[in-house]
């Protein structure tokens, strides 16, 4: 085992430059961690208002296509919604990776002072486990999990309903003034998603290729059956033909054939019929192939290798 491990090391890391690259990369890992941000995937929402609803269109983190989030309010007037840069709300207890879509600043008006209002966020991007996290920097613990209800609607839509009390902990302005400022965003578990999708997609490949394998096995059986049928058809014709010829050339009844002639005809017929079938090449067991056969086989296989000897891939 040690010898094998040594060989592995020798083979793979024997090239000095591979070892240099690996060593440098490993020592650089902590620095690299800090160096990579999510800046390249920062969602930039665009807002539009339709009546009392506001829509945000954005490309979330880890997505290539845009999604829509609809905002509406009950028990208050939805004044406006704006995006918030995550850097302004970054705290050690939260990880930006869990917030795939942007953070939002939602302003509500016409609230009964000290009363409650409901804010709804609806999107087909949310899943049943999506939560709504609220950021309120006036509190000692700035990030709070809201008790948002997660409702399943038709057409794969999910609705997050957050109940906010004017002047309560979710209200960032902290005042009982008939206005509510809700800062926060939908949160999904990054690692849950990453690991979940890992298993689903890895086994997905098995499923896809297994289905293809089954398709090929079935079509292979069909084609082999066709080939057998064709071969059987040829044999039948040959046998029929031979029978017809034998019948035509048969001596008249009562005339006996010479036994030596009969044996010769039987042997000829046997050789003819045996020759129609492809007999497998038998390899004498226990004996090593001769040098001429090894050389011939090597030449034959080298020629076959050329067929696959392409370099572009």
């Amino acid at each position, binding site marked *: 085992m040690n010898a*094998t*491990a040594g*060989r*592995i090391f020798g*083979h*793979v890391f024997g*090239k000095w430059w*591979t070892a240099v*690259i690996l060593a*440098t*990369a490993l020592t*650089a*890992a902590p620095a*690299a*961690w*800090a*160096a*990579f*941000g*999510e800046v*390249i*995937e920062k969602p930039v929402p665009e807002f539009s208002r339709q009546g009392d609803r506001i829509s945000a269109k954005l490309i979330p*983190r*880890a997505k*290539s*296509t845009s999604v829509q989030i609809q905002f509406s309010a009950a028990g208050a007037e939805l004044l406006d919604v704006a995006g918030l840069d995550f850097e302004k709300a970054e705290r050690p207890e939260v990880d930006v990776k869990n917030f795939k879509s942007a953070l939002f600043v939602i302003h509500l008006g016409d609230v009964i002072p000290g009363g409650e209002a409901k804010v709804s966020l609806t999107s087909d991007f949310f899943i049943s486990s999506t939560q709504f996290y609220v950021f309120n920097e006036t509190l000692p613990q700035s990030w709070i999990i809201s008790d948002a209800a997660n409702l399943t609607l038709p057409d794969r839509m999910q609705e997050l309903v957050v109940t906010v009390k004017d002047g309560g902990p979710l209200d960032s302005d902290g005042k009982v003034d008939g206005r509510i400022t809700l800062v926060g965003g939908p949160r999904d578990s990054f690692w849950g998603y*990453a*690991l979940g*999708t*890992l298993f689903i*997609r*890895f086994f*997905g*490949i*098995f*499923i*896809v*290729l*297994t*289905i*293809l*394998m089954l*398709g*090929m*096995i079935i*079509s*292979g059986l069909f*084609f*082999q059956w066709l080939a057998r049928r064709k071969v059987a058809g040829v044999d039948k014709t040959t046998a029929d033909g031979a029978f017809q010829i034998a019948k035509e050339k048969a001596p008249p009844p009562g005339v006996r054939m010479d036994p030596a002639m009969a044996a010769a005809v039987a042997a000829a017929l046997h050789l003819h019929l045996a020759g129609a079938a492809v007999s497998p090449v038998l390899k004498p067991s226990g004996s090593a*192939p001769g040098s001429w056969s090894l050389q011939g*086989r090597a030449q034959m*296989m080298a020629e*076959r*290798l050329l067929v*696959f*000897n*392409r*370099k*572009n*891939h």
Partner: protein
Amino acid sequence: MSWAYVLELIKNIMITQTGIPNLAIKEVFMVGVAFFFLYLAVAKKYEPLLLVPIGFGIFLVNFPLVPLMGFSEHGNPELIRAFYKYGIEWEIIPCVIFLGLGAMTDFGPLIANPKTLVIGAGAQLGVFITYIGVLFFGFTLKEAASVGIIGGADGPTTIYLTAKLAPHLLGANALAAYSYMAMVPLIQPPIMRLMTTPEQRRIKMRQLRPVSAREKLLFPLIAAILIILLIPAVAPLMGMFMFGNFMRECGVVKRLSDTAQNALMNIVTIFLGLSVGATMQADKFLSWKPLLIFSFGLMDFVVCTFGGILTVHIMNLFLKEKINPLIGSAGVSAVPMSARVSHTEGLKADPDNWLIMHAMGPNLAGVIGSASAAGMFIAMFQ
């Protein structure tokens, strides 16, 4: 005209119109990197068809003020930027290469032994392990997917997926993929020997059945229907691959098939290599990320090889006719290099054991498997 004026004119010309005063140390370093890859390609013959244009692309774009990868004042792309924009950004070249690969591929060994498709799936293990591994190093999900696919050992698939998900990593990913593909004969054998006993390496497999021309003709149609129905996102790659193979097998468009295999393939390879190399400009390339990608790429290949062989061991638990586990490593794609490695290792164990045709099955399954993995990733981010 005074001397001061002439001197100022010369100074302005030197600064704005020549590269020498603008040459920075990082650009000199990248020219060195270009020489290194050209050396590997020319002297060591490591994937020269790709590494020569890639190396030359790196070499060209790392001179200061060169009008190659930018845009003109009117917004028109400069020379190599145009190759990149229309070839890679528009996802044309990887698909055209798949067309050529399809036209070059004889699926006979895979059709004769469809069980080997499962090996092609098992050999994608490294793709997903690497995907998770790089996430721990702060890569985004899209970047992680593009790095993971390196282990699929399929250059065009790597380029296609990276161009789609993380174009800023294109140069590093493509270089890692092609470099390690060239190093398959170094990377795989120790793992193969570690994971097999001498008895297992001597397992002889039954001669593959002959495959009729009609079967070969129908294969691309059946495979395209099943794969594209299950993973529509892979249609550009798989569609072109199967179209190329159909042209080859139908036998009535020999000229088209020949063009796809040779002239077209060679033309797009030039543009692909130059474009990929040109993405490696010093200011974009010199960071820790490419180094991490090279490290994880190596690990990716190792785990993929491990996954392929492990899959054969698991299959052998259920099969009456045992499969030689050496062909498991061929599931990583890298056609036909990894199949040749399986064959060579088999010959070392038993000089009378010819595994090449058996290894081509998982090898081709690896191409389909890695393209499927790419399709899965693309679908994930849609």
